[in-house]
């Protein structure tokens, strides 16, 4: 059983973490130009990651295993929460409200990390196990995914 899917997606989690931290730094320093740039990068990484899961991996997994209404639904529900927070964060960037951005970023961080624990601990290993036959092609499609 390969773990190419979980490795690739976990690595992207860390890249998103880095992007979150960089945007926070800009907000804390009231560097609005930097915030606009770094937040845009962070938002784009998040949208891409969630898109890969919801549009590519989850449907294939659900078809392969018949597991609907299970862990993937829990993850989708949390993605909705994240999208709400990201929308508020976009507003904070636009209005150059550093305090608001940092509060939202802190909240997103906690939500995101407990979400990632569940994905990396449970869901991704399930994906590796049930989709092992398609691992290589899926990893290629993940890398090529452009939203």
């Amino acid at each position, binding site marked *: 059983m390969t773990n190419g899917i979980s490795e690739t997606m976990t690595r992207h989690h860390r890249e998103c973490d*880095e992007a979150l*931290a960089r945007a926070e730094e800009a907000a804390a320093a009231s560097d609005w130009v930097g915030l606009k740039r770094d937040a845009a990068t962070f938002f784009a990484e998040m949208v891409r990651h969630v898109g890969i899961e919801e549009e590519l991996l989850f449907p294939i997994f659900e078809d392969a295993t018949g597991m609907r209404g299970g862990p993937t639904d829990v993850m989708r*529900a949390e993605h909705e929460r994240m999208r*709400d927070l990201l929308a508020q964060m976009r507003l904070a960037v636009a209005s150059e409200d550093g305090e608001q951005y940092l509060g939202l970023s*802190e909240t997103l*961080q*906690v939500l995101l990390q407990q979400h990632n624990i569940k994905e990396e601990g*449970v869901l991704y290993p399930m994906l590796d196990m049930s989709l092992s036959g398609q691992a290589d092609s899926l990893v290629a499609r993940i890398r090529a995914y452009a939203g």
Partner: protein
Amino acid sequence: MASMQESGIRLEQAPPISVPFRFFLTAPGFLFLAAAAMVWRGGELAQSRFTPAAIAVTHLFSVGFMSMVMIGALQQMLPVLAGAPIRQPRLAAGITHICLTLGTLGLAGGLLFDQTALLKTGVIGLGCGFMVLLIAVGLALLHARTRGAAVNAIWIAVLSLLATVTMGAILGSSLGWGIPLLAALLVDLHPGWGLLGWTGLLATGIAFHAIPMLQSTPAYPAWMVRWFVPLAFVLLLTWSVASALPPHTGQTGRTACQVALASMYVAFAAVTIDLLQRRRRRLPDVSVDFWRVGMASLLAANIVWLAGIVAPVDWRVSVDLSIGVLAFFGFAGSIINGMLYKIVPFLAWFHGQARAGAGKAVPNMRVLLGQERQRLQFRIHLVTLALLVCASAWQPQFVLPAGLALGLDATLLAINVLGVASAFEALGAPA
């Protein structure tokens, strides 16, 4: 794949907010009661850890404050970290919470007011509360769908709690019913298992994952994540057996285990301080400051303990009390406080947002509980710690100001935590 469907792996969501919150909101009250007892009976506290007042204050803190928060957090973390939700969470939490609350009040009240009937009720209440908790958590863990270091750590911490509570029940029966069974042995093993086992291993086991994730620090060393908790458990078992042997037989084993455990916790504290120094997220964060103080206290407590083992000097009593202050209040009290300041506002936001629905924004974590209010309480906490250390290590007269400072510490913590709870209520959501 039929086997996966049948195994029914469920990534459960969190329990209702009232499940953890009842514990989190009660804990500051017990901290305040500990302070009140300290102000009232401070003189006896300084004499030894075995006076009724000292036992009362210790348990108001270790059960009423520390364990309450840890149990609340465990209810929250079991679904997330272990894929192991507790069945009937409201019922289990309700019984546990009521029994532990009344039990702690009974135990402390019985000791402070010299009321044996009250004390007996307290011991029974505590026994029932912990029994229900251990059964509920044990069943959940048996059905846990994930494996790995975090789940193993929770298992071991819970087993350590079982050991602690069993010994506590025996000591309690000695106090309440005059059955002096193994008392001389258990007065060291009971706090040892409670602090180094239940508290320490739950804290380290969670920290190995939570600190790198929440603060974007580098990872803990892989060998530490894998081996720290199981090794500490084996050492605690060995220490217990060695302690039960006649002194001339078991002394070397006892000492070796103590030195090993102290060294391990020193290593954990040092690594954690280093990782926090190298964290990627650099925002000022009172929770991180609480953890720094916790780690510094853990270092200090273990260094004093090691010094006492390796080069014992004839000031046993205040060494015991100093280690107790540093380990209980400095270490456990600080990290638990820091953890509360993350979990309480997050849960209020999480459940508040769920009820409000999509498209309606609820206040974020930092609005629900601002850094300034946290920092004020943190400063009082530091003052309290300093006064407690002075009282235990230097001048017993410091007990009164320490008690007053602890009372203020508890009040500010209560205001902060209750503030979040009432903000949550104001969001119009049922708890």
